[in-house]
């Protein structure tokens, strides 16, 4: 697992952290406020709904009771009982039935909530199908939906059902009561109450509510809005425990959450149930949550801008530093860092500057060391061909030769001594061209002594050049080359040495009339070019002048080899410090 703080960009980290924090705070705030406020709202709602239902229940109980009392009074009416007993003759019976019909009709006229009144009895006669009062045969009662409730009781309210009237179908609740005279069961009085009236009571002043009216047995009589089965309450009847209460209903297929409040008064036959969609209760909480979310989103945006700005401010010096580091090269123009930071960035910048300075210093010392090392190498190379001890040995040999009378040998040894002397030159790397030529002449004289005759040489150097400097022992190897290789197997040869100034350069040519560089094409070039002496010269020149020199070997057209050495004009020997 990689530490993200090591992997990702700082501004990104800033934003993610801030946004994450705010999101967490926001989410928990929204959740907590939603939960608490919806719980409070649900509690409040159910409390007030319970109170309201109790009041409605009171009112409905009162009104329904008055209907029950009307029914009771009517059922005790002696005219009615006389009619139903059927003991009279036809005329009295007719007159009485007219009277009763009128009396009952007056009930419907003066109590507009009563839709109609039915009387079930033996020998129902002289009814009027267009009237509000109907007489029916007792047998017909069994066909009606309210009859079932009456089987076990002397009186009962029916569920909502519809009856036909002259003005079409009408929805009613019916209160039916068995009529007894002494102990004789004589018939049933059914008062049909307009369902809309009960419904408007149930509705109260809240037309959008969903309320259901049950009787004490849990039978649904009437509903405003959804009925029990529509609301998915039919199987939940056993949850109506005690006089009143609240529970939350979750209907499975539709997935609707609702709050169910129910209330039953101790002295009432009715239980009222109110169903409120959970979404309606918590709509306030939802609004709250939405508002918090929008505030949170605003805060998130602000935090985003703030972190963006912050990270920009923090990243700017770092970016500057990174850029400076990327473009850094020793000795080149340096990118200047702004100098007004005095905090951690200032320290960082100062550290970087100090580091740079140290790098520069280290680099300079490294260059110096390298120079010293090179010089040491050159000196070691010179020491290879300049063995000091030979000089002393030669001196002793000279003395031996003189003592032996060997003049020729003595002269050779003398010349060798001179050569060594020049070769040593107190350890100087550069000597004058004059000395160099002298050194060469010594060598040539030794060769002349060996040859006795035939070897000629010519030095054509303007005197102005003699004072100029040249790396020592650079000419002798070429001359030696001409004699050993060019004049091999010959008994005569001429060497011409020329020097000239060309601008700020000195050109020295060494020409011979020997066999030339015949071997060049025969595949053994190393013999002449790569011979120890020549290579030594080239390496030294390279060390002194870098690329600022040239040494070329070639054949002349008229025969013999030509060596051309070009190197910078040196008025003085180059200092050791360089």
């Amino acid at each position, binding site marked *: 697992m990689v530490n993200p703080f090591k992997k990702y960009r700082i501004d990104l980290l800033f934003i993610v952290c801030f946004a994450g924090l705010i999101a967490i705070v926001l989410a928990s705030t929204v959740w907590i406020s939603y939960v608490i406020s919806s719980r409070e709202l649900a509690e409040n709602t159910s409390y007030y709904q319970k109170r309201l239902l109790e009041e409605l229940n009171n009112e409905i109980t009162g009104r329904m009771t008055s209907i029950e009392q009307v029914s009771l009074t009517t059922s005790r009416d002696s005219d009615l009982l006389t009619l139903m007993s059927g003991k009279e003759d036809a005329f009295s019976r007719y007159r009485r039935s007219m009277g009763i019909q009128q009396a009952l009709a007056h009930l419907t006229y003066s109590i507009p909530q009563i839709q109609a009144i039915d009387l079930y009895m033996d020998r129902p006669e002289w009814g009027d*199908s267009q009237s509000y009062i109907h007489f029916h045969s007792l047998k017909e009662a069994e066909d009606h939906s309210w009859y079932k409730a009456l089987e076990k009781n002397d009186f009962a309210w029916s569920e909502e059902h519809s009856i036909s009237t002259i003005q079409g179908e009408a929805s009613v609740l019916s209160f039916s009561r068995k009529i007894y005279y002494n102990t004789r069961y004589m018939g049933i009085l059914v008062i049909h109450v307009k369902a809309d009236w009960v419904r408007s009571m149930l509705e109260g002043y809240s037309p959008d509510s969903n309320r259901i009216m049950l009787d004490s047995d849990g039978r649904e009589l009437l509903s405003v809005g959804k009925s029990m089965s529509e609301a998915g309450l039919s199987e939940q009847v056993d949850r109506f425990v005690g006089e009143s209460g609240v529970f939350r209903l979750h209907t499975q297929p539709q997935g609707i959450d609702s709050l169910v409040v129910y209330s039953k008064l101790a002295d009432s036959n009715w239980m009222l149930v109110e169903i409120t969609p959970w979404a309606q209760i918590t709509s306030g909480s939802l609004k*709250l949550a939405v508002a918090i979310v929008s505030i949170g989103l605003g805060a998130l945006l602000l935090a985003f801008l703030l972190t963006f700005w912050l990270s920009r401010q923090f990243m700017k010096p770092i970016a500057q530093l990174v850029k400076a580091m990327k473009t850094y090269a020793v000795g080149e123009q340096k990118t200047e860092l702004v100098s007004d930071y005095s905090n951690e960035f200032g320290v960082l910048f100062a550290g970087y500057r100090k580091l740079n300075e140290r790098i520069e210093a280290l680099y300079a010392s490294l260059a110096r060391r390298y120079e010293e090392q090179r010089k040491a190498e050159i000196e070691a190379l010179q020491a290879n061909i300049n063995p000091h001890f030979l000089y002393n040995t030669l001196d002793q040999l000279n003395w031996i030769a003189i003592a032996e009378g060997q003049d020729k040998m003595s002269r050779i040894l003398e010349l060798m001594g001179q050569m060594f002397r020049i070769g040593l030159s107190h350890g100087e790397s550069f000597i004058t061209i004059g000395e160099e030529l002298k050194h060469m002449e010594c060598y040539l004289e030794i060769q002349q002594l060996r040859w006795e005759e035939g070897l000629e040489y010519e030095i054509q150097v303007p005197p102005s050049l003699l004072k100029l400097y040249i790396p020592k022992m650079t000419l002798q190897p070429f001359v030696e080359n001409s004699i050993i290789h060019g004049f091999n197997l010959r008994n005569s040869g001429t060497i011409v040495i020329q020097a000239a100034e060309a601008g700020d350069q000195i050109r020295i040519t060494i020409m011979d009339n020997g066999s030339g560089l015949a071997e060049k094409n025969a595949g053994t070039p190393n013999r002449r070019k790569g011979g120890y002496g020549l290579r030594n010269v080239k390496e030294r020149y390279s060390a002194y002048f870098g690329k600022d020199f040239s040494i070329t070997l070639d054949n002349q057209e008229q025969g013999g080899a030509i060596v051309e050495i070009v190197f910078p004009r040196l008025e003085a020997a180059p200092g050791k410090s360089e």
Partner: protein
Amino acid sequence: MMKWKRLQIVAVLLVATLLLAACGGGKGDNAGAKPSDNSSASNSASEKVKLRVMWWGSQPRHEATLKALELYTEKNPHVTFEPEYSGMDGYLDKLSTQAAAHNEPDIFQMDPGWISDWTSRNQLEELGSKIKLDEITPSLLPIGEKDGKQFAVPLGSVAFGMIYDKAALEKLGVTPPQDGWTWDDFFALAEEVKPKLAKDQYFTLDYAGNYFMFSAFHYAKGKDVLITDDGKFNIDEAAFLEWTKKFEQLRNEGLVPPADLNASDKEMDPTADLLVNGKVLFRYSFSNNYTTWDSMKEGAYDLVTMPRAEEAGGWLKPSMFLSLSPNSKHKEEAAKFIDWFVNDPEAGAILGTARGVPANAKIAESLIPNLPEGEKVGMKLIDATTPDGQTFTTGPEGWVNFIDKDWPLVRDELSFGRTTPEKAYESLKKASQEYEQ
């Protein structure tokens, strides 16, 4: 735990405060806008109005009236109706009960006979100033007037005559009656059909104690009204005895239904009307009701004038009136509707002659030439009655119960054979003393 709860509440409160600050502006705007909306609505002419309208009648009249209400709502969408309609039985009881509770409908149909009582109790709103009356047939207006003010608007005029089962008479091989026939013809016809009647078939209803039929007989005998306009009992004993004895004879001969069957008759009830059931051949009818019977058994019936004697038996009368409740909360709109109902040609076309020949002369004029066949029969009765028909009178104030309570008792006693014609006359005369001033 408590601390945490408190913290939560504080957090919620904080957020809520923020929200309130944010939402406050919007809510304030709404609150400001609402009252102005309400006030403008209450001032505008299109305020929603629901008018209760109540009438009695038969099915065709209900249908025509409901159609007219529908058309009015279509034209005036802010006005809707709560119709209450029924048959004639119990109508006055219901209306009186509601009026006693000041809960009567805004607009209700009135019988000419009730108007004087209602105006004297100040239960009708003055209408003359609210409604255009210049197209109304002038002879129909006086009944709705009191002290020179119009309290009820006449809807139409009808003739009082008889309806008979033409198809049944033809089947029995009896010549149907002609307009202008006499009471002698009537009773002779009864004797003529007597042997031909099937079991459970009768000539006519037991009209022995029927106020209207006896009135017609009384008029025909030249004995004028049963109660004088100044409130005096005016039944001619001889005429009463002749009438009731004739019916006693019919009853004994089985030409009128036995009492319990007779009592079960409900005029124009498809199941309980004895004419519709084919149990009786004749019964009285107003000209406008022909279409109702015709709709129950098409082409079977015909109308004929009320039998006459020295004078004509039938009469023309304003069928019914519309009145406005003084307790109505929408008198202006209700009066507008009544005006439309009476004077608008479109309304007239829908309503036809359901309440008799329209009281609006112009509408009647345009309607009569194009009447459908069924309604022409009613027109024929009106034309036959017009030349020498009796002058209709509503009778004096305060006698409604004499007609509605005392007469029915005598009617039933006669029908059930509980009294004799002489005793019946005595009891009527005795009862009338309560009403005489």
